[in-house]
């Protein structure tokens, strides 16, 4: 697979953040997540998105694409339990993307901040695991 440019890496991360924001906003509207938890997670993702947009502006790019709700999200909104499972998978996807990006991005000044978002996404997974009642929070 061809290596992605730094701009492509940032754009892909921003697309993921937009999916997360849409998911938490929809869950809050449909009461599919505890309000305090959902607002915290959504607010964090919004901060991540703002930071990525700023980095993209520095690179001379305008912010791309709005996200469209997927059928999986629509199905997940039926209950808090199903949304938690959906959000855990989406956060896992985000965690993997940031883990890869923090190592691969060529601009070394972006590696540490991307890593700090990576650690936040890892924390989101722990928060969601706690919310579904898991008693052992790390594997």
């Amino acid at each position, binding site marked *: 697979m061809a290596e992605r440019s730094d701009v492509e890496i940032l754009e892909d991360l921003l697309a993921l953040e937009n999916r997360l924001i849409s998911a938490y906003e929809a869950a809050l509207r449909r009461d599919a997540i505890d309000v305090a938890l959902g607002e915290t*997670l959504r607010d964090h993702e919004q901060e991540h998105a703002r930071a990525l947009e700023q980095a993209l502006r520095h690179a001379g790019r305008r912010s791309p694409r709005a996200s469209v709700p997927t059928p999986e999200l629509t199905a997940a909104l039926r209950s808090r339990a199903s949304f938690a499972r959906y959000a855990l998978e989406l956060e896992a996807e985000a965690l993997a993307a940031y*883990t890869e990006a923090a190592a691969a991005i060529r601009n070394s000044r972006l590696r*540490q901040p991307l*890593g700090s978002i*990576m650690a936040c996404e*890892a924390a989101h997974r722990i928060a969601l695991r706690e919310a579904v009642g898991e008693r052992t*929070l*790390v594997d």
Partner: protein
Amino acid sequence: MAPFLTRREALGGAAAALVLASCGGGDPPPDTGPRPGSGAALLGSLLALEHAVAAAYATCEEVLTGDALRNTRAIAAQEREHVTRLQDLIRDLGGDPPAGRSAAEYARTFPRLREPGDALAFAEDLEQRQVRAYLEALTELPDLGLRSAAAEIGAEEGAQLAAVRVLLGLPAAQGPFVTGAL
């Protein structure tokens, strides 16, 4: 800056500073083996910290029970995996991984942990420092493979930090950026 430290902050911060001072991070890099700039010395520093943290968790476990004990045991098992992974990476670079110190040597530098809150505060501060160390390594390590390993371990440290915070009754995520910002 806040004018006062809580007892929890004071215990965690001071104790973690002691651990770091004793963990060998200031030891000179190996004088044979890997070429300068290979990243082996930095990995050695991370390994020394992992050794100290693994020993610290063994001490924490003495005062923990129930969910806190179950989770800290799981975290300690991950830390031992990190030790093995870092040792392998250093050997792959032609280096000789630094050995940990004895349990007694580490124990002399640890605070007296009288109750679960003391142990978890100590663990939280150690995890904060580990996350920071791995994120800093992302900037310094010269090779993509080494950075990938540091990122993967750093992600696990982020999860461990969050788990410890939950056990302390704190929000898992302390903010949108664990250290620094874009």
